[in-house]
């Protein structure tokens, strides 16, 4: 199991999710992707993306408008 961090700070919807999707094929089942984002729609978008793509959202933490999320593949 590996973990990787994706920094999408400063990017607006739909770029954070788009960059995650482009990163996704490089990850294997069980890997964890940590995403740093500050787009206001990110928490709902990542929740819905995980539901649709069958990934597990471990958490999405709001640190004053900066979000840290972890997704398990």
């Amino acid at each position, binding site marked *: 199991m590996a973990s990787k961090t994706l920094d999408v700070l400063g990017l*607006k919807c739909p*770029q954070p999710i788009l960059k995650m999707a482009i990163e996704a094929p490089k990850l294997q089942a069980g890997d964890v992707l940590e995403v740093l984002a500050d787009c206001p729609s990110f928490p709902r978008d990542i929740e819905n993306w995980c539901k*649709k793509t069958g990934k597990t959202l471990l958490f999405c933490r709001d640190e004053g408008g900066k979000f840290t999320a972890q997704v398990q593949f």
Partner: protein
Amino acid sequence: MGKMAIVCNGAEPKSLFPTFVLGSSAAASGDTVYVFFTPGAVAALKPGVVEETKKKGFPDLIEMWNGVKALGGKLYFCELGLEACDVKKEDLRDDVELVGATTFLTEIQGAQLTFSF
């Protein structure tokens, strides 16, 4: 996963940005995205135009365009547009495929989401 079909009728930001915000979001979520540019959008398909099209508050159009492509999306230009717009295939960017309406309609059979901008 599903299919999304978008018909893009113009070369202005009001047509291009909704096409690629929704298209790239759908592609990122695993849908196959089909964008069909009608002759009204031909000016956007000349080399370099997508790269230069910006709109305040929106992500770069070329990043969303490239995202759709990287995730398997199809970018089509209506074949009728060549003669109608007096352009040749070589005048257009090389990542757009020329197809007829029948091909587009056949490929989008079963699309759950369709848009026209």
